[in-house]
């Protein structure tokens, strides 16, 4: 009789171990779900941060404004002006026009360049992708005023403040990109 009780409790001991793990994972799942619901609600409330007043460089026609970044060397509100037919490279390497020390940025991540009166953004085979308005770009894409560019934790806004005399036909999609 005593042996039977002992055997039963030995099994209960083992079973309880799994009951605990099952309940633990179930509650973790519940916690995860309630957390996500909450984050969505908060995300909707948060207002878009407006870029500060911009003083463009003379001769520049467009620029990139940093909206937010995890890199202390790249403060929100800083502006990188672009001349017509200019090229700016973005990435972690210090050889880039815009260096971003971000764990999700590749050394040679992306490039923004002007061509025929338009500005294009191109991903240069980065590991974690370049996002234009939260869509990952696969090929060189034309930038429009107020477009949002995101690389890792760094998000920037493309602003166009002047147009050249002969304005290009905006929106042309059949155009071949220049090799950067």
């Amino acid at each position, binding site marked *: 009789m*005593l042996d039977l*009780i*002992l*055997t039963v*409790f*030995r*099994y*209960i*001991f*083992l079973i*309880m*171990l*799994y*009951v*605990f*793990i099952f*309940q*633990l*994972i179930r*509650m*973790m799942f*519940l*916690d995860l779900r*309630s*957390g996500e619901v*909450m984050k969505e609600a*908060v995300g909707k409330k948060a207002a878009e941060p407006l870029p500060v007043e911009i003083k463009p460089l003379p001769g520049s026609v467009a620029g990139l404004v940093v909206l937010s970044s995890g890199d*202390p*060397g790249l403060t929100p509100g800083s502006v990188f002006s672009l001349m017509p037919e200019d090229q700016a490279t973005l990435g*972690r*390497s*210090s*050889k880039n026009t815009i*260096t971003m*020390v971000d*764990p*999700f940025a590749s*050394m040679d991540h992306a490039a923004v360049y002007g061509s025929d009166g338009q500005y294009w953004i191109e991903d240069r085979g980065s590991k974690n992708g370049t996002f234009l308005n939260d869509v990952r770009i696969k090929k060189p894409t034309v930038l429009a005023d107020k477009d949002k560019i995101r690389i890792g934790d760094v998000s920037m806004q493309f602003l166009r403040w002047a147009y050249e005399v002969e304005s290009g036909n905006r929106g042309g999609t059949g155009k071949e990109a220049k090799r950067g």
Partner: protein
Amino acid sequence: MISAGEESRKYEIKLLVLAGLYLAAGAYAGYLWRDGDARSVLVGASVPALGFLLVAVVWQALKFRADPFLLPVVAMLSYTGLVFLYRLNPFYALRQFFWMIIGLFFLFLTTRLFTNYRRLSEYKYIYALMGALALITPIFLGVEQGGAKSWLDFGYFHIQPSEFVKILVVLFLASFMSENKMVLTQDTEFFRGFYFPGPRAWGPLLGMWGISLLLLVFQRDLGAALIYFGTFLAMVYVATARMLYISIGVGLFMTGGALSYLLFDHVRIRVNIWLLNPYGFFELGDEAYNQAYQVIQSLFAIGAGGITGTGLGGGFPMFIPAVHTDFIFSAITEEMGLLGGIAIVLLYILFIFRGLKAAMESRDDFSKLLAAGLTALMGLQAFTIIAGVTKLLPLTGVTLPFISYGGSSLVANFIILGMLMNISHEARIHE
């Protein structure tokens, strides 16, 4: 959102009640098998169970927002240790019981005193100094236990300072790296298509490698060397996200390992036991024989367990030397079977998951690095010893966190838990 924090503390209390039932089942089975003293078993099981619950209830009252799943996982691991120590030797269980109460007290103290843990990042050279002192003192004033001279004698109890040094190492590395993150992340030289870090980044990497090797040589502590260097690499990866450092680090460790294999007998013996047939050492005698004997007995014990085990008290784990410390996992697997062993590994995995989650949720580099480092430390320690007793890796003597017999190790691990809870609290309070 205030309700969310309180909601999650309820998970903690519910899970702790379940863990308490697990302890009760184990304690009753152990009591029946041993035919022990009913009153001491009752006190020995109910006091820790109530202690854990008390901590959770006080946290709830204080509106502590930290992760609610870390404490229950730790409770399960500690209870498993307590039940198995009682089964192996009630004297060990009694001592572990007192250490667990002290550990819980230190856990609570950590969550009260170091809530503002970010200030800790300012004293990094004090940690380095304290760590060095704590490692050196046992060499002169220490007493020897189980081959390693790393204990300090305090009359009624021994303290192993190296258990506390690991916390200091992670604290030092976290404050150093969060300050020098830019240096580590930015490239300095471009060579043949690879970006190589400059000497300022090389310095700490080489320094840490050197410390690991010194531990290996002077303290004969293979396990500690592996854990420190692994933790360091994990933290470097968290700080920089660059595989290059990891490949170089692994390369350095391999070189160090190969060199010590060639130079030191005790390393060679362990690697040979691991790679060659351990039964071949059975006939050899001396040190090799003893170490092969441990591993062989451990493998026999694990094999004897089968799927569901022999049941608590049904096996013969006492044949394994040091079964109450390093080899307790073999005893658990013998008596709770493959299922029990897998459950223990699962508990460690879930602990690591919650620890890394706390790291990801926190906002600043110091918190992230500290949480990731402490979690890596705990995970690597569990991995090293479980891999050692199952002959997946060469055996290196470290304790199984929260389960193995040992006061210093238990208290140090509870302090680590407290730090993780603080980081998680800080991250969640701003949500």
